[in-house]
């Protein structure tokens, strides 16, 4: 790489740092190569490593994290971070933080070794993004396909129920009063109602389904009527199972979650000082 090439590249890579710092750095390296003279120029450029590496050092210095980096070893002074080819790059100053998800997807970037010319250099945020992605994936995997299917099927049935309950809760809340205690009472009431009503309705529907199926079988002499009864019964039976899985979610997931978050919330209120330490 010739001197001109090197300087052009370096200038290009430093576009994003403040003008004054850039001019300073460019002048230093230009002078340096000038002083080295034609005979030493090539070896100096070779030892600079690459324009990317020099730019990374300049940028790391600007962001103030060069102070603690270097180390004397038995073969001189070196900074592990700037050893070729794996030197870490300080993020460009002009680029906004990459959206976490996107950065996480590209492992090359997330490692912070991205050496693409003028491209967006992955930073620490990349690694966070990866972790977040993993977390999301874990949560998402909890929903099995059949649960999703059931939920989709349930929407038309549940919508009126949800609206009713929601409306009821709102009405109740306003009825009790606009105070916080009123709302809390209303919520508790709704929770309690749900706790009783959900299993009750489930078993009611299941029972109705079973009865209708049996009733339908006894009416099979009038074929159409019997089949109608059995069909309705099977439908209700399915609805009952949906109710069962809802119960499972309510008791198995929602209530424990509610209790632990409430406990966490109050303990955080009490031990606030300890948490902030």
């Amino acid at each position, binding site marked *: 790489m010739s001197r001109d090439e090197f300087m052009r590249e370096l200038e290009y890579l430093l576009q994003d740092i403040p003008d004054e710092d850039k001019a300073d750095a460019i002048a230093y390296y230009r*002078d340096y190569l000038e002083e080295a003279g034609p005979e030493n120029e090539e070896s100096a450029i070779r030892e*600079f490593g690459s324009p990317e590496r020099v730019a990374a050092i300049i940028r790391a210095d600007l962001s103030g994290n*060069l*102070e603690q980096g270097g180390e004397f070893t038995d073969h*001189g002074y070196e900074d592990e971070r700037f050893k070729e080819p794996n030197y870490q790059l300080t993020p460009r100053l002009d680029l906004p933080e990459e959206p976490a998800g996107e950065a996480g997807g590209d492992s090359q970037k997330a490692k912070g070794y991205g050496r693409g010319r003028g491209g967006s250099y992955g930073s620490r945020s990349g690694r966070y993004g990866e972790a977040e992605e993993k977390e999301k994936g874990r949560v998402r995997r909890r929903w099995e396909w059949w649960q999703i299917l059931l939920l989709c099927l349930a929407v038309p049935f549940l919508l009126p129920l949800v609206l009713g309950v929601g409306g009821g809760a709102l009405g109740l809340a306003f009825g009790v009063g606009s105070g916080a205690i009123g709302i809390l009472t209303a919520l508790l009431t709704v929770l309690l109602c749900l706790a009783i009503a959900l299993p009750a309705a489930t078993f009611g529907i299941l029972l109705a389904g079973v009865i209708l199926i049996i009733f339908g079988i006894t009416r099979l002499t009038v074929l159409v009527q019997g089949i109608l009864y059995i069909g309705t019964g099977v439908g209700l039976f399915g609805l009952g199972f949906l109710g069962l899985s809802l119960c499972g979610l309510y008791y198995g997931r929602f209530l424990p979650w509610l209790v632990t978050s409430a406990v966490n919330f109050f303990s955080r209120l009490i031990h606030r000082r300890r948490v902030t330490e």
Partner: protein
Amino acid sequence: MTDEGIKNGSEDMVFNTGAALLDAVVLAVVSKEMEGTYGYRITQDVRGVIDISESTLYPVLRRLLKDECLEVYDQAIDGRNRRYYKITEKGRVQLKLYCSEWGNYSCKISRIFEEAMI
């Protein structure tokens, strides 16, 4: 190295980071030239003592400038500007501290090596 380092340097370990030792070496090299010296020569002089990459000194010189241990002036040489680095009064105080610290430090290390059973 900041003012703080100058104040309590005698109690603390000054050379706990490589950066401080490199600062000291650079200050010593620059202090030898009354009229100042320039980047390429500083690098070559330092390289006579310790093995550093040619690109290492730019941030070090910048840091010493920022801490007012060095000052710069430009001079026309062969129809272009050459930037000269000169040690300041503050730089000399800092260098003196480094020298005495290094004396203590290397003395202790030498003693323990002499006492070592080989």
